[in-house]
């Protein structure tokens, strides 16, 4: 195992997003806090509580999940895709670093970025409304695993994409709708049928609810089911990425 190679790539990936800190951390944090201010602090008081949980407490875990999902995905896609576009991916493809090490380094950097963003939002929410975590380990575990799964999804998307437009298609037409419809802002209990049943087919619903359960102890689905979903996603996506890294003609024709 080329540990120095792995450490170097991890450090390079972390340094990359830190170099554009304003764009990769500050900007998404501000956007998320705006959601919190508008939906939580302003409109939240007029919305009913859910199983005894106030709307701000309910909303914060959803928003944190939103920022984790977006930033984990965007970190791996943009880094890998830009190096593909610039031709610098060649440096990595000719280096004696295993595919597992490449994948792990890219994903860990994405996890770090999304946890930094998430940490900032949680800290702001705690300061503004005293939001706390009921099961901190569950929160951390979910945050880590969801970031891993979307970092992994980003790798595969970047490998298969030939244009920036294709990356945006996945973000705009798959991730964002599934996240918004996955219970960031509301409980699916308030949805009429058939939307309630349809929502149960959205994998992000399980991630958001499992994470929310760690904060407030309330969830639309069984938290263990959510855990199984997120672990399963990580495994499937990791296998998919490793297959692409080893066999994709987009990387090695």
């Amino acid at each position, binding site marked *: 195992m080329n540990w*120095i190679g792995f450490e*170097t790539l991890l450090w390079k990936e972390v340094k990359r997003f830190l170099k554009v800190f304003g764009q990769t951390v500050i900007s998404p944090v501000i956007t998320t806090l705006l959601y919190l201010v508008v939906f939580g602090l302003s409109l939240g008081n007029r919305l009913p509580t859910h199983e005894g949980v106030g709307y701000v407490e309910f909303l914060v875990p959803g928003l944190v999940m939103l920022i984790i999902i977006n930033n984990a995905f965007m970190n791996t896609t943009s880094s890998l895709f*830009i*190096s593909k576009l*610039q031709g610098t991916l060649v440096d990595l493809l000719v280096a*004696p670093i*295993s595919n597992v090490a490449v994948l792990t380094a890219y994903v860990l950097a994405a996890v770090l970025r999304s946890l930094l963003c998430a940490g900032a939002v949680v800290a702001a929410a705690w300061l503004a409304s005293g939001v706390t975590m009921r099961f901190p380990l569950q929160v951390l575990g979910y945050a880590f695993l969801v970031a891993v799964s979307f970092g992994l999804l980003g790798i595969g998307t970047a490998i298969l994409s030939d244009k920036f437009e294709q990356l945006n298609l996945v973000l705009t037409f798959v991730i964002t709708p599934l996240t918004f419809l996955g219970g960031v802002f509301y409980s699916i209990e308030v949805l009429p049928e058939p939307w309630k049943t349809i929502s149960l087919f959205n994998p992000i619903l399980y991630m958001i609810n499992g994470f929310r359960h760690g904060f407030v102890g309330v969830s639309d689905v069984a938290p263990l089911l959510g855990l199984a979903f997120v672990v399963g996603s990580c495994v499937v996506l990791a296998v998919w990425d490793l297959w692409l890294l080893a066999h994709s003609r987009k990387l*090695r024709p």
Partner: protein
Amino acid sequence: MAEGPLENLQSGRKLDAAPPGCPALRLVGVTKYYGSLCALDRVDLTVRQGEIFALLGPNGAGKTTLISIVAGLVRPTAGSVEVFGYDLKKHPMKVRASIGLVPQEINYDPFFSVNEVLRFMMGYFGLKPDQKRIDAILQAFDLLDKKHSNTRALSGGMKRRLLIAKALVYDPPLVFLDEPTAGVDVELREELWKYILGLKKKGTTIVLTTHYIHEAERLSDRIGVLDKGRLVRVGTRDDLLEEFGEQVLLFELERPVEQLPHGLAELGVTRQTDGRHLVYRYRNGNGRLNEVMDLIRSSGLSVREIRDRHTQLEEVFLKILGRAGGLPQ
């Protein structure tokens, strides 16, 4: 480009020793198809340790594909590749660790400085970043004053030099230079040539592709000619000249002749349309010069001047590719 600072540097690089006499590179039956297009057709090639091997060929001949296959950037459709005795399929990491690749296309990472890029390259290849060595490489490639500049801010020539520095900073024993002097000015080209010859002195094996015959002639120990995916000839410059070269003698006569005297045509002599010049061309070592001279004399022709010329490597190259229209007269 400064000379010398690299010579006494130890990179600390530990490679598994290649068995004595083992070639640096061995390709057997390497074939590559892109869909129905055959880019490489059953290429067999052995490059010895410590030599500079030039791959010559027109655009689309398969030079870059060949290099990319060895570097692991392109998958061969068939055939085997060994680098210092290690099979590419069985030991890809060992093969990659032995290779430095200077790609044809200039690339740069807009996020990082020159120094950071070189530190990353050392790390990727399993070496702890050694600032002393990086500084020496930067000095050798005249980039020391750009050490902390973003790679985006470099000029085209500087980016090209950084590309080469990246491939050499981890001191690979086998270096592929894919058209290293394409689009660079004459001064930089000369400096790069000096540097490449310096690497050879240190024992590095170099495979370079080039369009410039002069470059191949000046640098390489052996030359391989690729055409339409086939390695059509391999040899030293002298081998190729010997095999394909011609001597041409041009006899300028005092008075023009209406027709060629009897017997000269059989020896291969031709008359130019002005009637004032006779041309005798023969393969190296196969001339019948005495007989030609005797016949000219016995025919009563008076020769004012004899000029000779021999084939240049460029003409041999064109001849191998089957595109020569004969030597200029």
